[in-house]
């Protein structure tokens, strides 16, 4: 499976990463060889084999709906790069107005 530079750029954008043209070249070649290696999974007949997402058969782990102490507002914000008025400040995301 050869992966093109355009595909690398597309995946980088999905992953919220950005690369220099030289890095794109390197990734295209390294990802191609890794994908070529994983092609070997295509050899197997998987008819009737269910996927495993998780090894234990826990379906849902519920607890009682009781309020327990959590982080304070101050603690939750202590690592934020731009805290403001007890909130996280981010760039504007909604267009207009």
């Amino acid at each position: 499976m050869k992966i093109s530079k355009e595909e690398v750029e597309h995946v980088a954008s999905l992953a919220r990463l950005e690369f220099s043209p030289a890095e794109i070249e390197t990734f295209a070649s390294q990802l191609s060889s890794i994908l070529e290696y994983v092609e070997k999974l295509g050899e197997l007949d998987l008819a009737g084999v269910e996927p495993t997402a998780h090894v234990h058969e826990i379906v849902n782990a519920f607890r009682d709906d009781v309020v327990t102490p959590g982080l304070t507002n101050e603690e939750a914000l202590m690592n934020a790069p731009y805290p403001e008025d007890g909130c996280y400040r981010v760039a504007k995301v909604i267009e207009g107005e």
Partner: protein
Amino acid sequence: MSSELTLKKGHELRALLDGGEVSSVEVARAFLDRIDEIDSKINAFLTVTADLALEQAEAADKRIREGRVKPLTGIPVGLKDLLVTKGVRTTCASRILENFIPPYDGTVVAKLREAGAVFPGKLNMDEFAMGSSNENSAFGPVKNPWDLERVPGGSSGGSAASVAACEVPLALGSDTGGSIREPASFCGIVGVKPTYGRVSRYGLIAFASSLDQIGPMTRDVKDAALVLDAICGHDPKDSTSIMKEATDFAGALSGDIKGVRIGVPKEYFVEGLDPEIERAVKDAIAKLEELGAEVKEVSLPHTEYAVAVYYLLATAEASSNLARFDSVRYTTRVDGSDLIDTYKKTRAAGFGEEVKRRIMLGTYALSAGYYDAYYRRAQRVRTLIARDFAEAFKEVDVICSPTVASVAFKHGEKTSDPLEMYLSDIFTIPLNLAGLPGLSLPCGFSGEGMPIGLQMMAGPFREEVLLKTAYAFEEATDFSRVPGL
């Protein structure tokens, strides 16, 4: 006295502390001095918390005087730097978390704190636990105490090197595809990866959530059992942790392994396995037989697919887990032209090359058009790998194999070829995919004097037979040694 103290194992320190022969403060000072003296050679510590350690040691001495002692009271434990520690910088060996001060303790950290353990500091690792050589740390590689030109293994390289070099008697690591067992093998120590769900992952910065598990890295099996007893147990904060009664692994180390059924998987003794390692492991299996175990060949036919499955599933989970590093709630921020551009610039500057490579691979495997061909297919092959083990464990109690196909390699030897590096985990990955417990313990040395590791694997929640078998081997042999540094 202080340098002799650092040669002691955890349970030996316990006896000295309980006998009043030394104080916790003396123990803490001895190990802190040792770190001060040699860590510049091996770079195992990212943060040394001397003040915290001495404060905890004083509290431990008070507990000992008052008779409120638990097995780890007053014993130093090093923590891999992906375990969040309240008020102590936790970096994951990444620039993106360089200044992260967690506002809470992970569950294992809280359990150790309550047990009266002493924390000398946070240990180096591959960034976000992604690597097999500890060359992917943003804060410099760790050196192997047996040979400074070689890698200590990864990703828990700092944990392994610090224990081998007697900077700490005990450490915690985490294992997603071999990250406890491989460095334990390379550094000549014991490392245990518990059954998935045995130990809470709350406060473990996630790499691949369906595979990650925290475990002990120690100088002998008894210490590993003591640490496991301290950290196991159900935690309401981790919905994948399992309800089980309290464990007493340390109490179950009888030394008697008569009738334990040992399986030797033929797929693990193949071309590419270093002949010195093959010999050491086969000798170890013969020793177990001599001690009363029954040995037979078993087959794990899908072993050759494990690395491919792992590098699709682990990267897919990582690409999702690492999406949280968005420069809003924590991490430094690099401002861009809009929010998306800020994400991209922050992440491009904050993550190292291997982390980006895995996020890219995982994002690709999950993206539209490839999901069924890659991610879904890998999950189905994962089922076959788990079935292999389930079949084999109908016939045997413990499966023995090499931990790694080679001894520790040189720095830079595998960095140019990611795939070759990934293949060094071929013997450790299948166990994580099946969610089973395993360990590595020393079973010999190469001609060049590098440690060789024996891997033991068992069925779900069968840590007891695993530790018992390892303990019997350790008692009958003499491979637990300390490197001259």
